[in-house]
């Protein structure tokens, strides 16, 4: 059995959840700070800022989803790891990169956009929907990266 191939695939799965998770953690944390600032002055705005805080959390979920699909595909979850060549391992590692890299940066960028949106909730609560839409636009690129990662994972022949 070529252990390097399976190791590379596992590293890929780890990267997907690790980097996308870091992006989400940073984004959610930033919005959380901004939200706490608003709630400390006006606690009634909690529900509105909470929606904004949730937005950058999705990248972490996409990373987790990608990692689970990959681990399932290479048989790690089922308990019978596939015999992967080094090239196949590298392919799985490559498949994880779109969501890993885009997840990291889009999580942070979405966090900044959502934290700025918290400012809209603070000053003009009636227009909070606009802040949510603007932050949600960043999500598009995380979804595209997730799609590419999933297509790659399912199209690597084992």
């Amino acid at each position, binding site marked *: 059995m070529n252990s390097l191939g399976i190791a590379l695939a596992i590293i890929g799965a780890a990267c997907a959840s690790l980097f996308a998770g870091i992006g989400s953690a940073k984004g959610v944390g930033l*919005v959380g700070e*901004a939200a706490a*600032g*608003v709630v400390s002055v006006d606690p009634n705005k909690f529900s509105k800022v909470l929606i904004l805080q949730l937005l950058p959390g999705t990248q972490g979920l996409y990373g987790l989803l990608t990692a689970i699909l990959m681990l399932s595909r290479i048989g790690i979850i089922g308990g019978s790891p596939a015999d992967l060549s080094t090239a196949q391992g590298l392919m799985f590692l490559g498949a994880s990169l779109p969501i890993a890299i885009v997840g990291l940066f889009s999580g942070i960028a979405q966090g*900044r956009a959502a*934290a700025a949106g*918290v*400012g809209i909730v*603070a000053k003009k609560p009636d227009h909070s929907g606009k802040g949510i839409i603007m932050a949600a636009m960043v999500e598009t690129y995380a979804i595209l990266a997730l799609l590419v990662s999933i297509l790659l994972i399912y199209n690597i022949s084992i």
Partner: protein
Amino acid sequence: MSTTEYASAVAAVKTLESSLLTRSDMDQLINTPTLSELKTLLNSKTHGETLTDVWEMLSGYAPDCEALKILLYKNDFHNLKAVLKAMLSGRDPAHYYISPSNVSLEAIKNAYTSKSPDGLPAYMRIPADEAYELATRTLDGQLSDSLIDTAAIAAMQKSADDCGNEFIIKYAQLTTVCADIKTAYRCSIMHKSNQFLETAICGSRELDKASLIRAALSGRDGFLNYLSNTPYAEAAELLKNSPAQFEKWCDDIITEHAETARMQAFGAEPLAAYYIAKEAELKNIRIISICRECGTDRETITERMRRLYV
């Protein structure tokens, strides 16, 4: 420090901005029928909030107040002047101390009683020493005051350049320009000497010291003529007609500058802008209260109202 460090503080300040008094609130205050009604309305709108409360609140929210400290320099140096003069004339300096300030009354008092300015911030040590020496040697309060005023502006410029924040640099620049125009104009009327002007004028990139001194020495008309040919021609026009309107212009350009931070989601700028906004609001309240007590007509009060941030 990363600007996102201020995310919480900025969000809190943006929430507080909705409670700033608007133009219609000010009109309501101006048009209250009696003084007692004015006081009741003021209490209901401002809850007796002072600038010290605002500063303490901002300090509580901001992860780092270094960039904002410059906003208190004018109070710091006012306190230095007040404590020096109060101590030399045997009065209680506490009556003249204003807050918020970066330097406590005790620190200034100790610096003078112990003849050692080490307890003061670095930007105040030399001016404190020099002003004391000048005041005790010449017994000319105006000269020591002008030395401290110039030192305040120089300290503000240096701190602004050191912190590198564009908003703060522009704030220091506008403050310098206003202070220099004010001083040079007064000196031109009072025919002050070149020596006095050298101490009193600070100078900046926009209005350099040598030109300002030359213009001030040429008399009021000469100075206004010089100013008319600078980017601050508007100030010259106002000075010709009404020094009170010029004072208003000085406050208004600072508020106008603060408005540039309204759209910023991160950084120390919205905090500084809120402090400036609150300063303008409280100044307007003071103008309304004093004018109403003196029986000034409502049109004049409205004319004197400073630009509002909201």
